[in-house]
């Protein structure tokens, strides 16, 4: 079902944990949908010097968190912002179609953490260039999980 890379990042997740006094935090997902990701960033001179995560979710969610935090470490905020969910999935050597939303969640978590930092800095939050059909939406009827 999962690629070896996914299994590796699931079984040996990189960067699990929290950062004390993080520069920015992104909390995405919803327990009702079965996945929550918290991304913690340490940012110095516009560069992500540390990234950590805590995730409640399936194997793909954990692996996506692990890979996403790996990919953004050492990157500038602009570079990190541009890392798409597809890049995460590709770095994992692919995800099953029903699990692609996990990589979307990772991208969203990073964006949210970056904007959290920007807001704290008194900067305008960046706007999503390609808003994907969001994974977890409140519609009129309540929460829908778009898996």
């Amino acid at each position, binding site marked *: 079902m999962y690629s070896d890379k996914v*299994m590796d990042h699931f079984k040996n997740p990189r960067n699990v944990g929290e950062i004390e006094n993080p520069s920015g935090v992104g909390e995405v997902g919803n327990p009702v949908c079965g*996945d929550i*990701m918290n991304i913690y960033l340490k940012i110095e001179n516009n560069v992500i010097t540390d990234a950590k995560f805590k*995730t*409640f979710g*399936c*194997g793909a969610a954990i692996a996506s968190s692990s890979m996403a935090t790996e990919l953004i470490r050492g990157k500038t905020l602009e570079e990190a912002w541009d890392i798409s969910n597809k890049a995460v999935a590709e770095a994992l050597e692919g995800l099953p179609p029903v699990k692609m939303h996990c990589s979307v969640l990772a991208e969203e978590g990073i964006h949210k953490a970056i904007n959290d930092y920007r807001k704290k800095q008194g900067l305008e939050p960046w706007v999503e260039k390609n808003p994907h059909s969001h994974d977890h939406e409140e519609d009129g009827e309540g929460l829908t999980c778009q*898996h």
Partner: protein
Amino acid sequence: MGEKRIIYMDHSATTYVRQEVVDAMAPYHTENFGNPSSIYRIARASKKAIDTARAQVAQALGADADEIYFTSGGSESDNWAIKGIASANIRKGSHIITSQIEHHAVIHTCQYLEKEGFTVTYLPVDRYGLVDPADLEKAITDKTILISIMYANNEIGTIEPIAELGAIARNHKIPFHTDAVQAVGNVPIDVNAQNIDLLSLSAHKFYGPKGVGVLYIRKGTKIDNLIHGGGQERRRRAGTENIAGIVGLGKAIELATADIEGHNKKIQAMRDRLQKGIIATIPSTHLNGHPEKRLPGNINISFEFIEGESMLLWLDDEGICASTGSACTSGSLEPSHVLLATGLPVEISHGSLRLTLGNINTDADVDFVLEVLPKVVTRLRDMSPLYKKSGKDGGCNVQ
């Protein structure tokens, strides 16, 4: 992942085929391969083998042999029972009663009939998964043409009060169907004492082959065919008979029902020790299903703060085969409709684990799972943002 020992605790999903059954089936592929509808000798041998299997099933259910119809499995039997009764009785009415915790083979069939204009009442269950006979009594109208309540639930193992429900149906002269796919071999079944008019079963749940099942149809029941064609199964189920499969089913049901009590005692002892051990060593768990009225091998426990699929992956890595009610394994949007029907919150349903013990298990298996599972849960909780929020041992404070 190497040559690790496999600890199979997913017997409700499917079982291996026991050796006696494999042996019984073998001659029907290569020697006695004749089409039982033909009149020559090798075909008559096939016919005789089917007659024997039919008698074995009848014996196990307290039914007559000519009330037993072989199908391709539990799903076909459920579809046939429900659609067959529905279309044959449409002039009488178009109301069907079932429960919220049925297998998808029943629920999706009922939903299909709703699109075709039928009305379906899905009876609720209590926190243990039990249907209340009083609810059934209340739901019946003069348009009700079928009541279908499962014998034992596949996820949480709860055993429904079938004889009582059957008696209510009988009083109202409404055909009563029960999906007994999980019950055979675990519960003594008597279609007459329990007022069952139709019953579905599937061989691969009791150490028989996959792809063969039975629909029991009480004599005189008005029902349309689901699969039309040749005159097989006394003109009620067309298709060249899966002789090897039918022979296997017959042998398997004979063996599975020979000593239900002895079988249950052995399995239940292991199950109870495993269940107690898990609850004792892992905090923040919910036992799902009924504490007593329950299949002997079934454990269904929810672990707060973690998600089921990631548990299964870790367990698989240790050679343990199990399943979960999390939506994340199925690609569906919702976690188990059964757990939700018992009132379990959605977020906790995601963290459910089903272990179903069977003939293949040993005390050593139980020890091993008791050793591995707490570590898996801890590992996943340690990386769960929900666990931290809750203060590690509080309740589930998700919004």
